[in-house]
């Protein structure tokens, strides 16, 4: 592009008023739209990122959306654009300071459950270990898609001025589809098959899906549910019987950590800009934590994890369950640390039975 605004305006005066079909033409986009003329964000070493183009009026993300349309920020708009009915029209309701970075990261770090896992290197495992891995994968393939369904439920309600959040949640939906796929494939590919589903799992999914506001939904999904699953993935990598499962869990862990990072910083942003919302989040977590405990301590998952931690059923009591208890304790302290980072002080309020996991509540408070 080499022209100047003045040159364009001069040359546009001689443009036709009608098309060859006889239809009226409008050249105001050529004559009038000069406010961003000359803006040329420079690509960085990684290419042209969403951060790079966040300049000028386009780069200004309003605290209150100016309209409920899909027209991009920074552009000119007709005055009679239809109302698309968005419900989340305040930045604080959806935004996180790291969301642009996380979107670029998600795009750069997509992977394929078909291509990037060395499926042909799976090994035959002892029956008890294979069954345990399949039970864990059954539970994971059951729960992962909720983290796609829930953002999908809220995406169309988010104002288009906050497109970066919508784009990030689009990557999350893709991630969760892939997680559902990869754990299903693992369960079905080595002789064990899909195993048992339980009510406690579905109760957790229902609680998350039925959250009344996006604020509560994000707290329940990103902070509580995905934070817990992130730690399950970390344990999964630890207990994987072969390098194939290790890679599955590591790749899924990376994705899940992005979702948790968004949720943590979103909740923080929202509380900073609207402190009253903290109580709404606390109420959601009060009930969510109870359901999560039923899910996390359900007899199938705990026994499967314990068998994997023990390397089989033989040492499950003296090795598997004690190690599991230790790891569950770490999960709870990780969750509380994320709540603190999000601006939520849960320690005094939570009903999580820390004593069950051998955790001294006062020591957690000191940390």
């Amino acid at each position: 592009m080499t022209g100047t605004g003045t040159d364009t305006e001069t040359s546009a005066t001689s443009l036709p008023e009608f098309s060859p079909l006889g239809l009226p033409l409008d050249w105001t986009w050529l004559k009038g739209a000069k406010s961003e003329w000359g803006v040329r964000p420079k690509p960085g070493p990684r290419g042209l990122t969403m951060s790079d183009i966040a300049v000028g009026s386009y780069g200004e993300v309003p605290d209150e959306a100016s309209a409920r349309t899909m027209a991009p920020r920074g552009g000119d708009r007709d005055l009679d654009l239809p109302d698309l009915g968005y419900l989340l029209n305040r930045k604080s309701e959806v935004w996180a300071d790291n969301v642009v970075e996380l979107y670029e990261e998600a795009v750069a770090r997509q992977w394929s459950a078909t291509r990037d896992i060395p499926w042909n290197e799976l090994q035959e495992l002892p029956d008890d270990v294979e069954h345990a891995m399949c039970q864990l994968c059954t539970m994971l393939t059951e729960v992962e898609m909720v983290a796609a369904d829930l953002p999908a439920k809220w995406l169309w309600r988010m104002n288009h001025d906050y497109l970066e959040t919508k784009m990030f949640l689009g990557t999350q939906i893709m991630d969760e589809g892939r997680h559902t796929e990869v754990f299903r494939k693992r369960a079905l590919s080595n002789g064990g098959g899909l195993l048992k589903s339980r009510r406690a799992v579905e109760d957790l999914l229902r609680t998350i899906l039925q959250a009344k506001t996006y604020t509560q939904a994000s707290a329940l999904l990103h902070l509580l549910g995905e934070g817990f699953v992130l730690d399950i993935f970390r344990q999964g990598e630890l207990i994987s019987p072969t390098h194939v499962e290790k890679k599955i869990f590591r790749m899924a862990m990376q994705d899940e950590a992005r979702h948790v990072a968004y949720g943590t910083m979103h909740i923080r942003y929202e509380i900073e800009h609207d402190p009253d919302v903290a109580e709404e989040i606390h109420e959601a977590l009060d009930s969510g934590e109870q359901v999560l405990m039923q899910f996390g301590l359900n007899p199938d998952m705990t026994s499967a994890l314990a068998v994997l931690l023990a390397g089989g059923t033989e040492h499950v009591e003296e090795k598997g369950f004690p190690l599991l208890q230790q790891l569950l304790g770490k999960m709870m302290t990780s969750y509380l640390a994320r709540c603190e980072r999000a601006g939520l002080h849960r320690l005094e309020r939570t009903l999580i039975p820390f004593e069950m996991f051998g955790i001294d509540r006062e020591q957690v408070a000191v940390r």
Partner: protein
Amino acid sequence: MNETTVTKVDSSEFFEALGADMARRVEEYRVLGDCNMDLGIEMQRHDGEPFRIVLHFEGLESPQVIVADPGSDMPLADCKLEGPLDAWEEMIADIRANGSATGLQTLNSLTLIGDRIQVIGGDTMGVDRFFRYNQTLQAYFDGAATL
């Protein structure tokens, strides 16, 4: 296999060599995607003088290795991996013996158990970067198999 074998784990040369290996295998890293973080490494030597570096990862470039001056604090990082030199040497020995880290010797497993090597950070968001880029970090350390 390189012409020169780098055996001393607590040295900047070791991490520079891992970076050179990363540069040779950049297409494998491209599949994993960009990595943007500062990862601190602290190895406690037997003589009490710790070896401290920060690996500055950016995109697909080999990380810049920033060595802390003896006696000074660890340079700022998103988080750090800290443990006795013996634990680091065992991890690298496992990688060299098996071509990549196995069993409990992966970065995630070691730090999840946390009794030998810990992941530490003042900000949980910084620690979460260790999880967000874990496969890249593991691939970087697995490069020790080629040194």
